[in-house]
């Protein structure tokens, strides 16, 4: 049985989707009618096996990031189902307990790291363990140091995020994700904010995780990573999955014309 199955995820953005933001005294009651609607996800299905490293490719605006955010309830989908480890979740109507249970089994690495700015590298890694999982501090510190060592940053444990380079911050974020011992880690364009040199250090940590059998779902623009590290590649456009295949097959013999066109365009930049 697949470890993670997602079925028919749908999401529409509306320009008035952020309640309260424009609801001040100048809010016009008629404004809602003019609200713009954009269907970002039009029914996405995806299956991830244990130990899979799935790369999600696609042009900007294809819904890759939104999909990932829906899977962790950072956005609420309009429809969709997620089955993780045999446990089913309704992505459109989850209660607080469901959300907490799902998030306990997953971890998320953001494009812009999102390290807690008022915490040191080590505290960033241990915060969730101590506060959310009620782990004793000594034990959490031991786990934290082990995870920092794993990403090669044990010597920067007491540094604050602003004292670290982008690549180091992202590696701390990966250590933070690993600390909770998740079933799967979602990566949302983890290297897009980094220059090529720093990208390399983050990718090599991710490659190491892949070799250790960590299950990962990675939204990325790094073709090298998709081609050489991921076991499966998914191509998304306009809110649907256009093609998904084992990575070797995906790059050697893409079935869909649109995929071939995308890969041809990318080839110029590689």
């Amino acid at each position: 049985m697949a470890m993670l199955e997602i079925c028919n995820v749908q999401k529409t953005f509306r320009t008035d989707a952020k309640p309260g933001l424009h609801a001040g005294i100048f809010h016009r009651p008629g404004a809602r009618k003019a609200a713009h609607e954009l269907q970002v996800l039009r029914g996405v299905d995806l299956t991830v096996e244990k130990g899979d490293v799935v790369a999600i490719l696609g042009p900007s605006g294809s819904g890759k990031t939104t999909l990932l955010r829906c899977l962790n309830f950072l956005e609420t989908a309009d429809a969709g189902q997620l089955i993780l480890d045999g446990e089913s979740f309704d992505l459109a109507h989850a209660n607080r307990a469901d959300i907490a249970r799902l998030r306990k089994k997953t971890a998320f690495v953001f494009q812009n790291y999102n390290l807690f700015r008022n915490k040191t590298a080590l505290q960033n890694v241990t915060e969730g363990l101590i506060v959310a999982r009620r782990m004793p501090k000594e034990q959490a510190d031991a786990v934290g140091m082990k995870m920092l060592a794993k990403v090669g940053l044990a010597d920067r444990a007491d540094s604050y995020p602003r004292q670290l380079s982008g690549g180091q911050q992202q590696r701390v974020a990966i250590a933070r994700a690993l600390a909770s011992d998740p079933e799967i880690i979602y990566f949302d364009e983890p290297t897009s904010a980094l220059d090529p040199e720093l990208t390399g250090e983050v990718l090599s940590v991710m490659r190491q995780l892949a070799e250790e059998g960590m299950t990962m779902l990675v939204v990325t623009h790094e073709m090298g990573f998709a081609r050489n590290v991921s076991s499966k590649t998914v191509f998304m456009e306009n809110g649907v999955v256009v093609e998904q295949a084992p990575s070797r097959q995906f790059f050697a013999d893409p079935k869909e014309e649109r995929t071939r066109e995308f890969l041809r365009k990318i080839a110029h930049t590689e």
Partner: protein
Amino acid sequence: MFEAFFSNRTVSVLAEALPRILTAGLTMTIPLTLVSFFFAMIIAVAVALVQYANVPVLRQIARFYIWVIRGTPLLVQLFIIFYGLPSVGIMLDAFPAAVIAFAFNEGAYCAETMRGALESVPQGQLEAGYCVGMSWWQIMRRIVLPQALRTAVPALSNSLIGMIKDTSLASNITVAELFMAGQRVAARTYIFLPIYCEVAVVYLLFCTVITKLQALLERRLNAHGFQ
């Protein structure tokens, strides 16, 4: 004109008044300021959080509170609480009445400072907290509020300095604070200019100390890599 300052009588009156003014300042003005500011901060954080979290009814109450307090003079608020409330059966001593007025007044201004500071914390900080399994409250207490408070330190110090001086209004509701101590000496001796200048210098002294403490606090926070 300078004889007024340097005549023997003026100098001896100023010297005699100084301990009274300082004592009133240390035993009344400073406690009144600190106690009021403490409660103002509690009100400010609560009122800012209610708006930040968009709690339906409480949010409207918070906006109404800020609207009323910021739209009416502090002196009028003091008079309503001390001279007005007894007619509906609420009798308060001068000091608690002053604390209530100052706390609610300053709370409204600091609430806006705190709301701005809360909104300046990137949304990603909250999302990262959710993703490691923390609850909204845990994220507020341990991640967002500490960052917001750090951002708010300069503006809150401003408010605190403003409040020290505003407490002089409490003399109008019989609180025997710094300004009233000066007023009494002036009324008794008819030496106005030197005495009120002395009062001003003591306020200046208190505010200088607060300013220095603010600089010290910011340096410490920055040394902690925390910005």
